C-alpha cells in the first residue's frame, strides 16, 4: 500500500497494521493491545489502526495505555488511527485530550 505523506509530495510506502480493541477497554485488554502494537511497530509498521467497532466501554486506565501506545508510535515515526469509535467514546477521548494526538476515522 502506498500513500502520499509530508509537504514535499513524495510517495512513500506505508506499512499499515490493524489491532482490534475488545468490548471493554481496561487495563488487561489495554495491555494486550499495547503488546500487539509494540510487536507491529517492531515489525516496521508505520501506521497503526486501532479498531474500536466492538468497543462499548473505555475506562481511564485504558485511555492512559492508549496514550502510551501513541507515545511509542510517535517515537518510532509511526501514525496512530482510531477507527469506528462510538460517539460517547469520542467524547471521552476529547475530555482526556486523546483526540488531538490521533486521527479518528
Amino acid at each position: 500500500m502506498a500513500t502520499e505523506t509530508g509537504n514535499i509530495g513524495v510517495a512513500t510506502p506505508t506499512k499499515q497494521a490493524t489491532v482490534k480493541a475488545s468490548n471493554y477497554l481496561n487495563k488487561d485488554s489495554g495491555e494486550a493491545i499495547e503488546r500487539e502494537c509494540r510487536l507491529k511497530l517492531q515489525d516496521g509498521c508505520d501506521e497503526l489502526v486501532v479498531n474500536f467497532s466492538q468497543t462499548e466501554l473505555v475506562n481511564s486506565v485504558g485511555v492512559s495505555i492508549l496514550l502510551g501506545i501513541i507515545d511509542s508510535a510517535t517515537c518510532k515515526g509511526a501514525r496512530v488511527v482510531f477507527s469506528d469509535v462510538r460517539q460517547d467514546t469520542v467524547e471521552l477521548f476529547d475530555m482526556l485530550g486523546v483526540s488531538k494526538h490521533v486521527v479518528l476515522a
Partner: protein
Amino acid sequence: MSVREQELQRLLKHAKAASEQGGLFLLSPPAAGASILLLETHALLTAEHGEVIPIYFAFDRRDETVEKACFRFVREFLSQFAAFGRSSWLDELAGEYSQINADGGNASLIKACFELPNLAGAVGKRCFVMLDSMHEIAFMRNADGFVSQIKRQWEDAPFRYVFSAYRRFFGKDFDLPRLMVDRLDDKQASRIIEQYAAKYSVSLNDECRDLLATQLGGDIENIESVIRRATAENITLDSFSNVQRAYAEEIFSGGICTYFDAVIASAAPSARDAADLIALLYDSAKAKLSPVDAWRARLGLDEGQFARMLNVLHMEELIRLSSNRVEVMSERLAFGDYISGRHRLEIKRETRARVFADELIRYMRRAPELMARRYRRSQALDLKQVLSRFDRQEVPLAMFDYASFKENYKGLGTPDMNAKLAGDKTTLRLPKVIFAASTDSFYPNIREHIDSERSAVGVAFETAGYKAEDEVVWLAAEIDSKLEVERETAEFWCDRLETAALMCDFANYIIWLIAPEGFTADALEIIRQRNGFGSSRRQVEMLQEHFTGKVSHRSAETETDGYSITIPMGSDGELIAAHTLEDIARKHDVGSGMINQMKTAVVEACINAAEHGSSPDGQIRLSFNVDAERMNITVANRGLRLADVQKSADRESQARRGWGLKLMERLMDEVRLEQTDDGTTIKMSKLLAA
C-alpha cells in the same frame, strides 16, 4: 469455638494422653490470652467430668511471699478436686493440710504443698494441673528456686501438668516440650472482639471492630476492658469517635490504666523512681535505641533496682533489650498512650480535662492512619515469605527482570504466560535464604520510609557449602506507584536500601525493588548499576505461584438487593455495575447519551475503589435511585479513604493517571466524596431533565 482452637486441642490431648507422665511449657507474650486458653481447657474437662481432674492455679504477685502462694495453691487444689466428688480420703487430706505451716522453711513447705497431685495419683486419681502466670513468681519475696523446685518435684510424677508463663520468663534450664502461643492475628482478634461485644451486649460495626483489633494489637485483656467500658458508659461501638472515647477512658482510668500502673509500680516501687521512669520512657519512645548505660545514669538506681526494672519491662514486652541497648516497643500503642497521658499529668502537671481532650483528639486523628496501615499491610506481598522460599530454585529471569517481563510477557493471558514461562530458558539461580525478617528489625530507621511488612531482608548463601564468600543478603522493598516507577524514585529507594546494608555491615548484597506497574527503562538502568532487580507486582505474584503452585486470587461474594448490588473488586466487576445501571436507567426511559456518561462515571468510581481502597473485604457496594428529576448513584467501599490517598498521589495526578474523580465530575452533574470513618463513599447525581 475457641479463637485458639488448635492450641486448645493440643492442651486437651496433652491432658488425656495415655502416658501418665509429662509436662508442657505454654509460653506466650503478655495479654495474648494464655490464661483464657487454660481456663477454656479447665472448663471443657470439667464439663466432660471424665477420668482427668483439671486443676487450674494462677500465681499472683499480690501473694507477695512463697508461703501465701503455697497456701493458696492448697486451697484451690482441694476445692477444685472436691468439685469432682467428695470422698473420705479427700476429707482426711483436707484435715491434714489445714494444719500445715511454714515452720520448716520454704523448701519443705513447697514440697508438702506441691505434693498434692502426687498424693492424688497414689490413690488412682488422675490430675491435670495447670500452673498459670509463673512469671508472677519473679515479683515475690525469697522466691529464688521456687519454679525449679516444683519442676524437680514433678519430673517423674504420675500426672500431667502445664507450666504457663510469659515467653521472656523461662530460662534455659527447662527442657520440657513447649507450646508457643503468639499474639492474636487480625482475624482472631476480630473474632474475639465480636464475642466480647455479644457477651457485653455492645453494638459493634465491622469498621470499629477492625480499629479495636488494630489499635490494641490482639491484646485480649485490653480489648475486653474497652468493650466493658463501652457497656458501662452506654457507648455504642459504631463510630471511630465512640471507640476512641471508650479507649481514652480506659487509658486514663480503666483496666488498661490499672494494668500499666501495676507494671510501673513493679518496675519502680517508689513514687519518685516511677516518675523518673515515666519521663525516661516518654523521652525514649522518640529516640528509638538508647544505650543501657544512658538509662542507668539517668535513673540513678542501684544495680539491683535497675536490673529489676529492666527485667520487669523486658518481660512485659514494653521494652526490647539487645546488644546493650534499650528500645521502647512502639508497637504497643496502648502503652505509648498510657505513658503520654501519665507524663503530661504527672510530670508536666497539666490539667486532666485538657490532657484527656488532647489525647482523645490525637487518638481520633490516628484512627484512619492505623486503618490505612492495616489495609496496606493486608495488601502487602509478604516479601519475608517470598524470600524464605527462594531455596536455591532456578526460575525464569523474567520473574525478576521487569524489562524482560515487559518485552516477553506483559499483556499475555494467564494460560499463554504460563506456557511461555515453562519453556523460558533464560533463568536465574536463587540463593538459599537461611533467615528472613523485616528490614526494620535489622535497621529501625527504615520505618520512616516504609511499613514494616513491605520491606524484608533475606540472609542467604549462593551455594550449599555455606562458605563466608558465598554469603549474600537480599534487601527487598515494595514501593507505591500507579505508573512505571521513574529514575528519581528508583534512585531514592536504592539509596535507602543501600544505607540499610551499610549500617548492618552487609558486604555482599542485592537490592530488589517491586512496584505495582514496574519501572521505566531509565529506572531499571539505575537499579542494575546498583546491583539489583526491579520487578512489577505481577512478576512477584507469578513467582509466588511458581513457589506454591497456587494461583493468587481474591475471594469475594456478591449479593443483590433491588437497586443495590455488591460487586467484587477486579475481574471486571465494574462492567457488571455499568450494565446494571444501564438496565435500571432504560427501565426509567433515560436517554442513551446520559446512560453512557453515567456508565463511564460508575466504572471510574469502581476502579478508584479497587485501586486505592486496599479493601479488607474486596467488595464495592452500589446503589441506584431514580426519580423524575435525577438519577442518584452511590459507590462505597471499605478500606483506605480516597481523600487520604489523594494527598500522597498528587505527583501522579500530573501524569497520565489519577483522572477518575475529575472524569466523574465532568460526566455527572454532582459528585460528592462523603466523609467516612473508613473507606470511601462517592455520591453522584445526573439531572435527567438536562
